[in-house]
């Protein structure tokens, strides 16, 4: 550490204030973020979800067929009925 000379107290005070202010800001913001995430997880455990979230889950489930529901052989394709000629 270099010798900070006769004004070392001012330099250390400046860095100290910066460190304390930034640390306090980080603690408040990260703490609030964690609290909100915990609350959301708690509400979701109780079955409370947004409508858009439910729709997204339902769409994802519909788009991804399960292996048990899949038929072993593909159903025979029936040709579309031809329109009788007039």
């Amino acid at each position, binding site marked *: 550490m270099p010798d900070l000379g006769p004004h070392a107290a001012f330099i250390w005070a400046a860095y100290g204030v*910066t460190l304390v202010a930034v640390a306090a800001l980080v603690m408040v913001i990260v703490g609030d973020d964690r609290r909100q995430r915990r609350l959301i997880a708690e509400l979701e455990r109780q079955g*409370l979800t947004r409508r858009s979230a439910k729709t997204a889950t339902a769409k994802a489930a519909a788009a991804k067929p399960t292996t048990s529901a899949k038929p072993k052989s593909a159903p025979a394709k029936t040709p579309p009925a031809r329109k009788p000629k007039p």
Partner: protein
Amino acid sequence: MVSLANPTRFLSLVDAIVPWLTAMVLILLGLGLYLAFFVAPPDYQQGETVRIMFVHVPSAWLAMFGYMLIAVAALGTLIWRHPLADVAAKTAAPIGATFCFIALVTGSLWGKPMWGTYWVWDARLTSMLVLFLLYLGLIALWQAIEEPGRAGRAAAILAIVGFVNVPIIHFSVEWWNTLHQPASIFRAGGPTIDPSLLTPLLVMAVGFTLLFVLLHLIAMRAEVLRRRVHALRQMHVERAAAA
């Protein structure tokens, strides 16, 4: 860009960015502090006190950057009425206020040994104090009005009106005689600071800026989730009342 304005996509983007940004902030601030204390030489006039510049100048820049961000977000609130614009403005205010506070205190601690006083009511210092008071006013306004939409619109108007102070801060050292030195980095003709002091300053400035962005993204995520928690609870109460 438009798809990022979707709160759900924004949340997943923040989840992906935060770990990388955290690593970059730690590396840059660690390197910046090393350069500031072990590599940068003392200034020929200011001696060792020049090391205060490495925290004072980035904080002052970010105090102004934060307010500019709020003013742009305020336009987004008033013109497009996008909820993320309001969230961005609301969450930037405490971060900008903190950096403004750091700039004021470290400037004062730098002023005493160099000017012989902690404070003078000159244009640069006073306009920075006004910026800090504007930040406090915005935070108080958001706290005072419960409904986020109304609070966002009221704060947006105050933010845009208060934006006039930002160019005053920047040009105050040119328009009036002040104790504060004139611009020495963003000026026509290039920076006047020696590279041995400029390099640590720029490393610290990038580190501080990324720290601001990181904290802002986390605070925005928390605010979006807070509004979701509020909406879900309200929905629960309405369902219970209807049943």
